[in-house]
């Protein structure tokens, strides 16, 4: 086994570019999955089965099928239907959609964990429905679910390399390009492997402080 430090040095400029793309995808994907997940969770509470059923079927299907195939689906099928997005945009949408079906369960559990007395108090105070949700239920539910959402940010980070399969040049994409040009696989692949451990460790520290400030 021979390790070539100059290859690491040559790879670094590409690595930073890839890291930036990975972090952008992560930030946008989290944003989509957090907001869309909340929408799913609220739709599941609409008291007719005409809403509950379709939402349940769609989210169950998305959750139980591989993200990679969903990426291919969006990347190759949407243009056939006349909807062409750029590769990174498709990737962000696919990751956000896939993870929204996970965060939906998190929100659902958080909403169910709000004590029944809070609902009753809101009824007793004659609060309108929208106000009950916005001022009573959601602030309590959201605070509870921050740690669980944080875990999904971490697993989303580890799913961003899949975007390489639809030609997005994030960390793994850059590493593959570099190693195919130079025929040096060990260094770039090891560098990004270590980078994933470091980034996810830093992110977990960040999430823990956030958690401590929100959950008291």
């Amino acid at each position: 086994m021979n390790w070539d430090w100059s290859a690491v040095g040559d790879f670094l400029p590409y690595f930073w570019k890839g890291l930036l793309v990975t972090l952008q995808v992560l930030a946008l994907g989290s944003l989509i999955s957090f907001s869309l997940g909340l929408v799913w969770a609220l739709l599941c509470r609409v008291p007719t089965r005409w809403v509950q059923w379709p939402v349940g079927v769609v989210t169950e299907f998305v959750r139980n099928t591989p993200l990679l195939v969903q990426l291919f689906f969006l990347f190759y099928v949407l243009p056939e239907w006349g909807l062409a997005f750029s590769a990174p945009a498709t990737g962000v949408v696919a990751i956000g959609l896939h993870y929204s079906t996970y965060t939906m369960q998190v929100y659902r559990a958080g909403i169910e964990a709000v004590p029944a007395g809070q609902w009753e108090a809101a009824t007793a105070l004659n609060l309108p429905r929208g106000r009950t949700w916005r001022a009573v239920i959601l602030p309590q539910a959201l605070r509870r679910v921050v740690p669980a959402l944080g875990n999904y940010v971490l697993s989303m980070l580890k799913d961003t390399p899949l975007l390489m399969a639809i030609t997005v040049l994030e960390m793994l994409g850059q590493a593959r390009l570099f190693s195919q040009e130079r025929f040096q696989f060990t260094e770039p692949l090891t560098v990004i492997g270590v980078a994933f451990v470091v980034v996810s460790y830093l992110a977990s520290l960040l999430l823990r402080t956030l958690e401590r400030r929100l959950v008291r």
Partner: protein
Amino acid sequence: MTSGLWELVLKGTWTTIQLLVLSALLAAAVSFAVGIARTHRLWVVRFLAGLYTEVFRGTSALVMIFWVFFVLPPAFGWQLVPLWAGTLALGLTYGAYGTEIVRGALAAVDPAQQEGGVALGFTPGQRLRKILLPQAVPEMVPPFSNLLVELLKGTALVSVMGMGDLAFSGNLVRLALQESAHIYTYVLLVYFVIAFLLTRLMRGLEHHLKAGVR
């Protein structure tokens, strides 16, 4: 679609199932071995097991697959058959998630059960086999069921390395027909059906095991 293309999809499905079974077995072995090691008396063993978990949970499964395919052969002179390389990468990564399940379930057993075992003069091995595991294993089944579905979805990653699994055969059919909506819908449906069957199977297993305890 012609019958030849269907055959391709069928073969891909079979590869996916093979990969799923093999890597699930490896992941189960890893999660029990490392998960139990995390409750060991010696801190060195606990530390090493914890390090394994952190490293393999921290990296992406796809990066791990690349590493096994491209770095292992020149570095150690191991050229693995794609099926085994995929099994190794997936089994080690998802096994690391499994260690947390095993550790959590072992920690959740009432400490009095351990103490009862000590009082009755059981050896550590006997305590593990006869007291801890029979109570902990039924609790592990639901999280393992989730992990199994995650693993199924993870098997699609090997198609990036050109291994002929279900997702890969889907890509071949797309290239052959120049049309993607149908084939990807079928592929997604097949994955969904497998995942559905797996969760049913695990639910049955849970019932069976819980019936044994109480």
